[in-house]
C-alpha cells in the first residue's frame, strides 16, 4: 500500500481522533487548564500543563517511534468479513464501514517495518479510534503476520496496544485471536528476538490477556487503564468502590505487573535502550560442547 494512501486524512471532524473536542483551544480533562490544541499535538498529545497523556492517533505514534521516513507499512491488505452476520442496534458491516470511513484503514491496526534509533523493528500500533481497538480476525491476523515476518527478517517486535478487548461481533473467532497472536510470538522467542510491549490507555480484556502482556519487556504509559475486566464490571461484581488509581499504570507497576511506567516523551529512547541491552553479548552456545560447562 502506498504511503500517501496510508497517511491520507479525509475526515470531516477530528473530534474522536485525538480524544478531545474540536476547536483551537481545549480544556485539559485532567487539570482543567486551557490548552492550545497545536501545543498539545506538538507535545505528543501530552498536556503541557500537567503531563496528562491523551490517547494518540496511530500516525502520530508512528512518527514518534520510527526514524524519519523509515516506516514501511505491512498491514492493510486484508479486511474483515461478517462471519456471524452480527446485528445489534446496527449491523456489524455498517459499524465497520463507518470506522473504515473515519479512520481510513480496513481495521483497528497498523503494522510495518521501521528503524527505531537505527535498529530494525517490526512496529505494531493498535487504533483505539477504530471500534475501540477491538481485536477481531483481521487485527489478530495482522499481529500474527507481523510477528512471523519480524522473525523471518530478524527484527525486534514492538507493539503499542490500545484496545477495549476482543471484538464481540466476530464471536468465538475473536476469542481465538488471543491464541493466534500468542502462538505467533513463538518464532521470535526461538530466535531470541526481543519483544517490547507498550500498554497505552486503555488496554483491556482479551488483548491484555494475550499478546500484550507477553512482552519480554512491558512498559506502560502514565495513567493508562490496563485491566482484564473493566472497572465497571468489577464494581458490579464486588459492589463497593474501587481504590484510587486501581488498574492504572502506576498501580500495576507497584503490583509488579509492568517493567516501568514511561513518559511518552522518553518512550523511544527507553525502547531503543532496552533493545540495545538485550542484544546478547555472550557467544551463541554451540551444540555438542554443553558438557564442558558441567565440569
Amino acid at each position, binding site marked *: 500500500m502506498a504511503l500517501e494512501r496510508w497517511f491520507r486524512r479525509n475526515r470531516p471532524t477530528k473530534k474522536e481522533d485525538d480524544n478531545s473536542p474540536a476547536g483551537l483551544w481545549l480544556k485539559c480533562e485532567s487539570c482543567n487548564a486551557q490548552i492550545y490544541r497545536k501545543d498539545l499535538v506538538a507535545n505528543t498529545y501530552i498536556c503541557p500543563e500537567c503531563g496528562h497523556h491523551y490517547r494518540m492517533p496511530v500516525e502520530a505514534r508512528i512518527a514518534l517511534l520510527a526514524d524519519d521516513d523509515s516506516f514501511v507499512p505491512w498491514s492493510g491488505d486484508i479486511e474483515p468479513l461478517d462471519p456471524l452476520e452480527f446485528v445489534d442496534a446496527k449491523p456489524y458491516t455498517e459499524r465497520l464501514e463507518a470506522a473504515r470511513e473515519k479512520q481510513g484503514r480496513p481495521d483497528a491496526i497498523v503494522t510495518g517495518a521501521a528503524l527505531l534509533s537505527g535498529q530494525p523493528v517490526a512496529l505494531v500500533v493498535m487504533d483505539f479510534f477504530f471500534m475501540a481497538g477491538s481485536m477481531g480476525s483481521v487485527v489478530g491476523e495482522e499481529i500474527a503476520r507481523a510477528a512471523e515476518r519480524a522473525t523471518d527478517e530478524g527484527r525486534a517486535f514492538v507493539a503499542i496496544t490500545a484496545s477495549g478487548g476482543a471484538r464481540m461481533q466476530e464471536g468465538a473467532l475473536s476469542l481465538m485471536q488471543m491464541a493466534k497472536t500468542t502462538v505467533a510470538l513463538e518464532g521470535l522467542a526461538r530466535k531470541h528476538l526481543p519483544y517490547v510491549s507498550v500498554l497505552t490507555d486503555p488496554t483491556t480484556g482479551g488483548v491484555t490477556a494475550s499478546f500484550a502482556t507477553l512482552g519480554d519487556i512491558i512498559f506502560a504509559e502514565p495513567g493508562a487503564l490496563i485491566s*482484564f475486566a473493566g472497572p465497571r464490571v468489577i464494581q458490579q461484581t464486588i459492589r463497593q468502590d474501587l481504590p484510587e488509581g486501581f488498574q492504572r499504570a502506576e498501580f500495576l507497576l507497584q503490583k509488579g505487573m509492568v517493567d516501568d511506567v514511561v513518559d511518552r516523551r522518553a518512550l523511544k529512547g527507553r525502547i531503543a535502550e532496552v533493545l540495545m541491552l538485550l542484544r546478547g553479548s555472550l557467544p551463541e552456545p554451540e551444540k555438542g560442547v554443553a558438557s564442558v560447562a558441567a565440569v
Partner: protein
Amino acid sequence: MSLPFERPIDELEAKIRDMRAYAGQQEIDLGSEIEALQGRLDGLKRETYDNLTRWQRVQVARAPGRPTGLDYLQHAFEGFVELHGDRNLGDDPAIVTGLARLGGSSVVVIAQQKGRDTKENIHRNFGMSHPSGYRKAMRMFDLADKFRLPVISLIDTPGAYPGLAAEEQGQAWVIAESIQRMARLKVPAVSVVIGEGGSGGALAIGVANRVLILENAIYSVISPESCAAILWRDAGEAEKAAEALRITARDLMALGVVDRVIAEPLGAAHNNRDAAMELVKQALIEELALLAPLTPEQLLDSRYRRFRSLGSFQAVA
C-alpha cells in the same frame, strides 16, 4: 428441577408413571397404551432437544444437575488423585487438577468446577478462577511435559473472576501465560467444553490439539448477558445476544473453533448423567489414541497450525 421448555416432557413422563401405577393397582394390562405414550415421549424429547434455541441451549449448558468437572473425574476417569495449590499464593477451588487414569493410561487432568449446590458454588466461586487457578494449571502443564503424560482439560466456567484481588494479582497476565504455556506442551492435549466456555478464562486451558464440545455446551467470547449489557444496553436482552453470538456446539463447529461435537443422550446430559459421562470418556479415549503416535514436534506444529489458522477475513479489493 426442570427447565421451562422441559415441562411438556415432565407432564408426559408423569402421565406414564400414573398409568403404570394405575395398571398395577387395577391389575389390568395397559402395556400397549404405555408403549404408545413412551413412543410419544421419545418423539417429544427428540423434537424438543433438536430444536432448542441458542438461548435455551445456554440454559441447558448451565442446568443444575449437569455433570461437572469433578463428576467426570470421579466417574469417567479412574483413580483420580487431586493435586492442590499453585506453589505461590494458594489453592483455587474453581479449578481442580490432578492425575488419573483413562482407558488404562495415566493422564494429567485440569477441570473447571462449578458448585453442585449453593454451598459448593460459594466455595468454588461459581467456577470463576483467580490467577492462582491458572498458575496451578500451568504447574500441571509442567508436570505433564516432564513425565510425558497427555493433558485433558474440562472447560466449564462463566469466565475468569472479575474481582479486585484477581486484577491485582495479574488475571490478564496469567491467562496469557497459560495460553502460551499450553500451546508449548510437548504432549497430546485434548479439551472438552462440558458446560460453559466463558471467554479468556476458558481459553486459558483450551489450547489443545483437539477441542471437543458437548452437544448442549456453549463457548463464547463474552457471556450473552454481558454482551447484551454493552451492545443492547440491557442485560435483559441476553436472548438476542445469545442468538447473535452463535455460541452453540453446531455454530462453533461451522466456525472451525471446535473439532468435534459429542452428542448427548436423548434428553440432555443433566437428565442422563452416567450415559453422558460415558460418551465423553469414549470420545477422549478415541482422541488420545489418534494423538498418541505423534512426535512432540508434530504435536506442537499441529497445535500451532490449528490456532494460527482461525479467523475470517478477505483480501482488500
